[in-house]
């Protein structure tokens, strides 16, 4: 028997006879089923992603030539602000919440989230908030960037700015409600046999993410409410004309918004940790290191915010503190990247769309991480801060990290969510177009920034024209890359081949139920017969084809001569029966 069969056999009693198909219209209702809510988040998020993408294409069209000839500079700033805001608050964060909603209860063997109604409320705040944000196009869109620094945000397009504040406040509320739910669900609703160290790594990642949301978001709300008072009531919290201090806003804003980048990327670290072992057919390498490094990242993420303010007149010693704290984050992040690579090394990698996106995720995220260490260095950041170097950096993290992670997750869990398989060849086409388009768009931006092109400009010096043209061509390729995915997803959802319970032979509990899962997930509580990543140790003689020692290819052996193995360690012994509990 393979591992997956073992796990499935142990969970036969939990398996409901029928998959839980929902009617299409149920997705448009106030439904408390976490799976419905998860899909609601994802589809809504993707819808806004398309809008944000159209705005991005408009910006790149404007930037194809040095002169502001496609839209006015004013409108450019509006588009830029809405693009950033939509991508962050309506796409990446809701997508993370979507996967968390769908997966957490299934992964920990629960029937729903801890507070299902709160969960539905949290979701239903998002679409109105998004539509509200878009209505700002009818007045005059906010023009101060997604950071909305005063005093500019208090003088340019006040109505639009006010709408922006309202809408971000609503998102913040939704995000807090969601985080409370994730936290309590993970802490309290695991099956009894699942201790923290048997928890799937995605849950660890969501634990870290939820903590950040709960600590950071209220501070953002405070800043935005004060900003709103400045705009509508003429107070002067941040307005120097009345004795206010614009720098205080920056501190409050970044106290949330730096952690926000981890809120956006940690869930997809979790996704990578789920997807890579399944498709490499190997246990995750260094489970605990990956789990605890999420917590470390989340803690460190709270004390680095002023690295966005090295040019804002921050005192020298504080700059040094924030520089060092930021650099330290490279360590837990590095642990994760190396662990993923080691998980793949020596495996039997299935190069399907999921795995390709996961590998693309590592490949592009690493670039963002490396430039992240560079911009953490104060003297260098004085040069590249607020330039296209930063635009490149942030897209390598948010697109190369989060969006590639989202796609990996969609290809991986689509069969579970819909009961149908996506088309593989089109998935690969989608991956290739995205990967090439992405690098073509954003890699050259590093050079633009180093040479002297500031960000958030609608017109630029003609010396930058060639590189910008390349970026624009890349962005069109990216836009086109979405088409095969959309067609594939819609077509497969309706008419794709049936997936079965566990098409990837995975071991986490969501695969032990029907696809799509029954309404309340499991008939009775499921059990963990083997750990969530215990690949390759079922029947020693037949299923795991690993020579215990191999002179020529030590890498491929499981025995003591493997380059990846330490001394035999009872807690990670080859066969479950050889294992001794630790401590």
């Amino acid at each position, binding site marked *: 028997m*393979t591992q997956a069969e073992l796990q499935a056999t142990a969970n036969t009693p939990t398996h409901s006879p029928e998959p839980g198909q929902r009617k299409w219209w149920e997705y448009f209702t106030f439904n408390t089923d976490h799976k419905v809510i998860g899909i609601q988040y994802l589809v809504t998020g993707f819808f806004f992603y398309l809008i944000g993408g159209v705005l991005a294409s408009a910006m790149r069209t404007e930037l194809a030539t040095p002169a*502001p*000839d496609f839209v*006015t*500079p004013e409108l450019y700033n509006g588009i830029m602000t809405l693009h950033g805001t939509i991508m962050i608050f309506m796409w990446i964060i809701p997508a993370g919440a979507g996967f968390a909603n769908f997966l957490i209860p299934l992964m920990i063997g629960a029937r729903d989230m801890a507070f299902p109604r709160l969960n539905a409320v949290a979701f239903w705040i998002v679409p109105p908030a998004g539509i509200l944000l878009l209505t700002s196009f009818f007045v005059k869109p906010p*023009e101060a960037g997604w950071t909305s*620094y005063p005093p*500019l945000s208090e003088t340019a397009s006040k109505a639009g700015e006010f709408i922006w504040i309202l809408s971000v406040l609503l998102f913040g509320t939704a995000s807090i409600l969601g985080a409370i739910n994730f936290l309590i669900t993970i802490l309290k609703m695991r099956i009894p046999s699942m201790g923290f160290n048997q928890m799937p790594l995605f849950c660890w990642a969501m634990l870290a993410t939820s903590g950040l949301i709960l600590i950071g978001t209220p501070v953002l709300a405070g800043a935005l409410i004060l900003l709103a008072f400045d705009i509508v009531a003429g107070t002067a919290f941040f307005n*120097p*004309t009345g004795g206010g201090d614009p720098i205080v806003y920056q501190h409050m804003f970044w106290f949330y918004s730096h952690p926000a980048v981890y809120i956006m990327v940690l869930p997809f670290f979790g996704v990578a940790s789920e997807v890579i072992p399944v498709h490499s*057919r*190997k246990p995750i390498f*260094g489970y605990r*290191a990956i789990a605890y490094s999420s917590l470390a990242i989340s803690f460190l993420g709270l004390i680095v915010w002023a690295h966005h303010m090295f*040019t*804002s007149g921050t*005192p*020298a010693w504080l700059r040094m503190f924030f*520089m*060092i704290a930021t*650099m*330290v984050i490279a*360590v837990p992040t590095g*642990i994760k*990247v190396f662990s993923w*690579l080691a998980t793949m*090394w*020596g*495996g*039997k*990698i*299935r*190069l399907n769309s999921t795995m390709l996106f996961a*590998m693309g995720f590592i490949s592009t995220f*690493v670039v963002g991480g490396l430039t992240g*260490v560079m911009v953490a260095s*104060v*003297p*260098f950041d*004085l*040069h590249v801060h607020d330039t296209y170097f930063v635009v490149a950096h942030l897209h390598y993290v948010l697109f190369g990290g989060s969006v590639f992670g989202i796609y990996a997750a969609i290809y991986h869990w689509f069969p579970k969510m819909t009961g149908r398989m996506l088309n593989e060849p089109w998935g690969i086409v989608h991956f290739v177009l995205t990967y090439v388009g992405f690098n073509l768009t954003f890699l050259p931006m*590093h050079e633009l920034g*180093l*040479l*002297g092109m500031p960000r958030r*400009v609608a*017109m*630029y010096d003609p010396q930058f024209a060639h590189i910008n043209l390349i970026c624009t061509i890349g962005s069109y390729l990216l836009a086109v890359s979405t088409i095969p995915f959309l067609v594939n997803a819609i077509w497969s959802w309706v008419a794709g081949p049936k997936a079965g319970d566990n098409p990837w032979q995975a071991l986490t509990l969501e695969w032990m139920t029907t696809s799509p899962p029954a309404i309340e997930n499991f008939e009775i509580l499921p059990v963990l017969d083997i750990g969530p*990543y*215990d690949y*390759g*140790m*079922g029947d020693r003689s037949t*299923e*795991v*084809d*690993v020579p215990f020692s191999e002179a020529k290819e*030590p890498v491929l*052996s499981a025995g003591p001569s493997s380059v990846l193995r330490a001394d035999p*360690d009872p807690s990670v012994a080859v066969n479950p029966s050889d294992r001794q509990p630790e401590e």
Partner: protein
Amino acid sequence: MNIPNTILAMLVGILLTLVSLWYGQNHGLLPVAASDEAAQVDGLFNTMMTVATGLFIIVQGTLVIAAIRFRKRKGDNTDGPPVHGNVPLEILWTALPAVVVAWISIYSFEVYNAMGGFDPMAAGDSHAAHMSASSKMRGAAIAAPLPAADAENPPASAPSPNNLIAVGVGASPANRGQNADVSVNVTGLQYAWIFNYPDSNVSSGELHLPAGKEAQLNISAMDVLHAIWIPELRLKQDAIPGRTVELRFTPRRVGEYPLRCAELCGSYHGSMATKLIVQTPEDYASWLQSQQVASNPSLEKAVAVNPGNLSDSDFLAPYTTEMGMNPETLHQIHHTHH
């Protein structure tokens, strides 16, 4: 071929190091460095680039090799080896990055110190002398769109907007405690920079500085945040309304360098650009003299360049032509929008 694995690994390691070192020095990504401090920043960047190149190749290389060598073969449905971890290896890849970032931090610290980042004058200790100089800024008084800010006659009750200081980059350790050779008051406003030379009562739209002399900019803003960025000096500092920030540096290389606004300040943020002109001390002196003669009294001069009195398109004309668009385009833009 029959090369043992260890030797192969060593060869790869050596090659990787060589490639990284070579690329770190020869990436050619940066514009010229016009000051000594800029050259130091470049050295720091080259180091980081070396490390980054190495790590980049390791990660991408591992991905590619894994994809080729460990891909699932047709018909093979078995699992990989059940390797759960390796403590020494994990310690290695925790400790190594920790050492590398510690090293980069120390290196950055030193470069920052050499640039003058820790000069107590610029780092936040009180220095009233500078403040009184900057509150005399002429451009400020004239162009101020702030309702309450009449910097030359601040109402007794309200603090003068330039009383607060923020922290910039001060004198490098060698020049500490001395006054800079040239002091310029810089004011950012939508969408231009005004450079005022308080010692000679000259105001200019371009920044002229003598090569090899230490310059000090006292930077402030009239309306919203701006940031002064001179890529060739690798220096950037926000201009903050209500505060004055000091930035000291020594340009070395004679030439003209772009000086751009790097903080979003409104629609025409992208056109808020001018030049830093580094001249020989003699050329600089004669420029200053010609300005003094031509622009006396300097007050009118400042008024003449006060963008507040120009229509948007008049004001933008010089910038837009520089950027390769003609005033008509701009006119159209304004029309279509209003």
